[in-house]
């Protein structure tokens, strides 16, 4: 009786260990699988051609990813450029200026943004942002745009990364010891001087980590961007041009045109690249955040 009980205990603990290890291993299994499947194209084409050629003609066997890489960078860049100032000012307001009850009401509301399915953002982008760009922004700039553009993708993406950047930044600002602010205020500094010279400086590594975390989300986001970015395989030359980011390329084509030789391998190579980039960003921001936490303790 006694031994049976102990046996059960041991089996349960071993089983849970196994499950934990295997969920951790999935990342490596996926990366390895993607690598295996992208080897055929890597064996034929030099990596530099894949990365820097602008010619994307799968039927002719030309797989230049450059337009998609640039599409991703443009959309992400616009998103970050919009998100950084707005998020930082919001986070500063919430952590330094807002009344406690404002903070307590606003923070969950912002966190709620993170829970909205990305397809909803996509639809919203198509209904609001795209027409806005087509009818107002482009004419204002004196050009024509269908509205499906880098800018539309950037705006939608910016709103999607708001909750991450704001949430983490507020935490980072709140972790700056109150007495450091006091020291600056006691010298007759205004609140803004204190925020600018002291709080921001102390919080800088953490804020960078927050931004990188937002960036890695933006890089991989597929659905919403796919719906508004226009998806034309050409390097965009302005924010009003359409773009075709990597995730959209994969989502649109995988499973459709796999009879074309090497197409499958090319798409999986881009998936691998995406996985590695996002992984890299995540690791960097985690490392910074851990160091920030340590330095505060």
């Amino acid at each position: 009786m006694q031994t049976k009980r102990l046996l059960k205990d041991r089996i349960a603990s071993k089983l849970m260990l196994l499950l934990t290890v295997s969920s951790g291993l999935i990342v490596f299994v996926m990366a390895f699988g993607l690598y295996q499947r992208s080897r055929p194209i890597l064996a034929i084409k030099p990596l530099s051609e894949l990365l820097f050629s602008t010619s994307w003609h799968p039927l002719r066997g030309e797989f230049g990813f450059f337009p998609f890489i640039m599409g991703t960078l443009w959309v992400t860049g616009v998103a970050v450029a919009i998100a950084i100032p707005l998020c930082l000012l919001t986070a500063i307001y919430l952590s330094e200026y807002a009344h406690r009850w404002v903070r307590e009401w606003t923070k969950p509301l912002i966190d709620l943004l993170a829970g909205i399915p990305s397809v909803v953002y996509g639809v919203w982008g198509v209904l609001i942002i795209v027409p806005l760009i087509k009818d107002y922004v482009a004419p204002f700039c004196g050009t024509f745009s269908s509205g499906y553009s880098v800018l539309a993708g950037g705006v939608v993406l910016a709103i999607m990364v708001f909750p991450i950047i704001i949430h983490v930044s507020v935490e980072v600002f709140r972790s700056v010891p109150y007495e450091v602010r006091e020291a600056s205020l006691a010298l007759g500094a205004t609140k803004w001087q204190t925020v600018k010279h002291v709080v921001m400086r102390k919080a800088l590594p953490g804020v960078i980590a927050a931004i990188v975390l937002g960036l890695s989300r933006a890089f991989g986001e597929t659905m919403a961007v796919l719906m508004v970015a226009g998806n034309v395989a050409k390097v965009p030359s302005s924010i009003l041009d359409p773009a075709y980011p990597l995730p959209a390329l994969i989502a649109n084509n995988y499973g459709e045109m796999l009879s074309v030789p090497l197409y499958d391998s090319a798409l999986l190579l881009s998936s691998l690249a995406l996985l590695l980039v996002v992984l890299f960003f995540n690791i960097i921001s985690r490392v910074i955040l851990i160091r920030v936490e340590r330095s505060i303790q």
Partner: protein
Amino acid sequence: MEFKTHIRVRNVNVFYGKEQALKNVSVDIPDRRITAIIGPSGCGKTTLLKSFNRLIDTTDGVRVSGEISVDGENILDPKVEVTHIRKKMGLLSQKPYPLPMSIYDNVAYGPRIHGIKDKKRLDEIVERYLRQSSLWEEVRDRLRTPASRLSVGQQQRLCLARGLAVEPEIILGDEPTSALDPSSSQRIEQRFLELKNQYTIVIVTHILRQARRLADYVIFLYLGELIEHGTAEAIFENPKEQMTREYIKGIIS
């Protein structure tokens, strides 16, 4: 001893939410003397100190009433510009909190935010106040290194230099030696004794011996009430109130 009053406190009440931290406190703080605020923890010492430079304003849900005049100006008046009051007072907190910048920039921070940009003048200011807080010799070769690399005792002297650099009239110390080792504490005390010729100094302390060593004037608070105040001699040698006597003998704490 005749004192000239520098800070005049009249009927000051402080509430944190529903809790009353100071009850109708009235006292005169003498000019160019060291005043020690003593009393057991939680009796409102720090609250009283922080109402002098209105740092207390930053606490959530705080209410202050009454009158505190510095140089004849009621600093609790909502119309008063708070940065200008705070510039008059240097603050030393319990633990030193250097700003996240170099030693030089820590001292230059105050003068810079108040508009001094001239490099040569800043150099002079930094040297003068680092000397006055007896830190210059130890850091003169590494002014550009982060202040966080200094020892805790050095950091506290840096905080003193930082506070002096805005040319205050008053120095407020909130248990300024409580995080320091004995020899660092002694150096800070020594600085206070030198500085009292030029500044009005108010320190909060729970170390009675420190109050005896430094103070010219003593304020005894108990549970938010001002029990007794007077010259150090009067309070320590001949206290009028039973409670003061018991506190000084260590019966209540």
